[in-house]
């Protein structure tokens, strides 16, 4: 097969598969079956297009092909049903006029279908891993192999997860719909959590040369933007998009030429992606205008925006960041948020203020093996001139981190403490 056609099919699949699957899922009311039908259509395309050329409207071609297969299946299942009927099984009435409904509904508003697909793929009956895998597969058009590589798990595991997820959805008779009323908020936060999880999986993996991981960030951003377009009145969706856009804008500045991580305040801000920054700030603005300034994602985005707006690290509005962390700590209290708040307090009001808060976290069980706590405390102690204590903290942090680059960095900071101490004694 010519690689050109193959590439074209890849591109068409990436653009078309979510709405293809979404449209089919509404008709057959089974996400697993919908995906099978869409895949069948893709296989047909792979067989035919290299000879006939890519059709003028490839999306319509795929949809028509999938539709025919669906109708074939319906006919077959109707035959089967009649047999069941004879055996006294109860029928589902939807299948009676399914063919007509199919024709009518397949051309309906696509946006709603996509949204239904998002909510179904992120349904709470599924485990978090299953939600992630299914979302990437159905909405991102990623192969199981790509998902497996992205999450560093064996491909059969992902394949199993997807198969089981689809079965669970079918068995639990999860309706293919966007929830309404009070349920919406809860379900929406599951959708947003899945998208952010995908993003973080890509974002925190700067180490290594795994090429799939930046693609995961891109994918999460794309999913976030899609949901934001489909649910323009939901402030937290814009908050999440804002957060991801601003974080992603720093991607190129987060690693130096040798591959070592560069801390936010040391980053070359010229290397931040201004397009993404602007998009992030716009999205944050939308979230705030919709009254969502206090949502957890919008708050985190607002913190990220403080950094994004500062032309140099020195211009950072730390008092505002500390206030935003205050709000976040009240909304979603966690030791990690407190630790970040301590850093902001130290930057805004001096290391003593930060240390005071960080000290309250020392007995926190979840912080016991978290290298950033001693690392941050070491920094405060160093700034306060308490080099001996700072030295011990940096050594502790170095012993806790699992990242080689970070260990080197912490050992160097511990050494700097020794040098300062020696200089002090020398005076």
């Amino acid at each position, binding site marked *: 097969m010519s690689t050109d056609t193959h590439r074209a099919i890849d*591109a068409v699949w*990436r653009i078309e598969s979510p709405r293809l699957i979404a449209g089919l899922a509404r008709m057959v009311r089974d996400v697993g079956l919908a995906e099978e039908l869409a895949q069948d259509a893709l296989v047909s395309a792979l067989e035919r297009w290299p000879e006939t050329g890519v059709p003028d409207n490839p999306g319509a071609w795929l949809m028509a092909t999938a539709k025919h297969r669906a109708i074939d299946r319906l006919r077959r299942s109707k035959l089967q049903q009649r047999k069941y009927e004879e055996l006294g099984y109860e029928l589902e009435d939807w299948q009676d006029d399914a063919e007509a409904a199919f024709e009518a509904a397949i051309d309906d508003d696509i946006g709603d279908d996509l949204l239904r697909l998002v909510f179904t793929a992120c349904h709470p009956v599924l485990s978090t891993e299953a939600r992630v895998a299914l979302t990437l597969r159905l909405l991102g058009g990623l192969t199981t192999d790509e998902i497996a590589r992205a999450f560093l798990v064996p491909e059969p595991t992902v394949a199993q997860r997807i198969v089981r997820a689809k079965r669970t959805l079918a068995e639990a008779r999860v309706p293919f719909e966007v929830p309404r009323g009070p349920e919406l908020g809860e379900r929406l936060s599951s959708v947003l959590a899945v998208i952010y999880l995908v993003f973080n999986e890509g974002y925190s993996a700067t180490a290594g040369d795994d090429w799939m991981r930046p693609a995961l960030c891109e994918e999460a951003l794309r999913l976030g933007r899609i949901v934001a377009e489909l649910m323009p009145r939901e402030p937290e969706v814009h908050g999440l998009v804002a957060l991801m856009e601003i974080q992603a804008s720093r991607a190129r500045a987060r690693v130096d030429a040798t591959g070592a991580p560069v801390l936010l305040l040391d980053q070359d801000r*010229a290397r931040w992606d201004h*397009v993404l920054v602007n998009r992030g700030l716009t999205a944050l603005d939308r979230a705030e205008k919709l009254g969502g300034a206090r949502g957890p994602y919008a708050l985190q985005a607002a913190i990220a925006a403080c950094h994004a707006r500062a032309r140099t690290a020195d211009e950072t509005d730390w008092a505002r960041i500390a206030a935003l962390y205050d709000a976040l700590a009240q909304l979603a209290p966690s030791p990690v948020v407190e630790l970040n708040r301590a850093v902001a307090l130290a930057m805004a009001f001096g290391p003593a203020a930060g240390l005071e808060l960080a000290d309250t976290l020392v007995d926190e069980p979840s912080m016991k093996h978290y290298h950033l706590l001693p690392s941050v405390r070491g920094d405060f102690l160093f700034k306060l001139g308490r080099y001996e204590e700072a030295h011990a903290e940096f050594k502790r942090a170095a012993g806790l981190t699992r990242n080689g680059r970070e260990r080197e960095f912490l050992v160097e900071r511990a050494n700097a403490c020794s040098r300062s101490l020696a200089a002090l004694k020398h005076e």
Partner: protein
Amino acid sequence: MRFMLLMIPKGYEHAAPDAMPEADRVAAMMKFNEDLQNAGVLVGLDGLHPPSSGARVSFAGGKAKVVDGPFSEAKEVLGGYWMIRVNSRQEAIEWASRCPGSDNEVIEVRQVQEFDDFPADVQQAAAGFEAMQRDIGQPT
């Protein structure tokens, strides 16, 4: 990666200075624009007034020379552009193929140069470029 889809409408080189697209053409184009936006790939877009209301500045002999439009020798001119962010050149081409273009229109698909595309010496010469884009808040 970012791509620019450059719309080149034949005949636009001679269009009257106040020429405007037909409303129904714009409506069809809006559907395409919305598809791009809904797919989360749209970064920016603009239409351009015809070149007859523009001007050309040339530099023959190292000296700037201004000629007002319309330009008699013009062959292809831009009517507008989309900036999109996609995963492959093929995906950009696929999107361009979906534009409801008319017989006289051509879309040129061009990848945007990223700073990282430049060799070291060019990066050095372009130092500050990214900061500049940021400072002017380049429209997205």
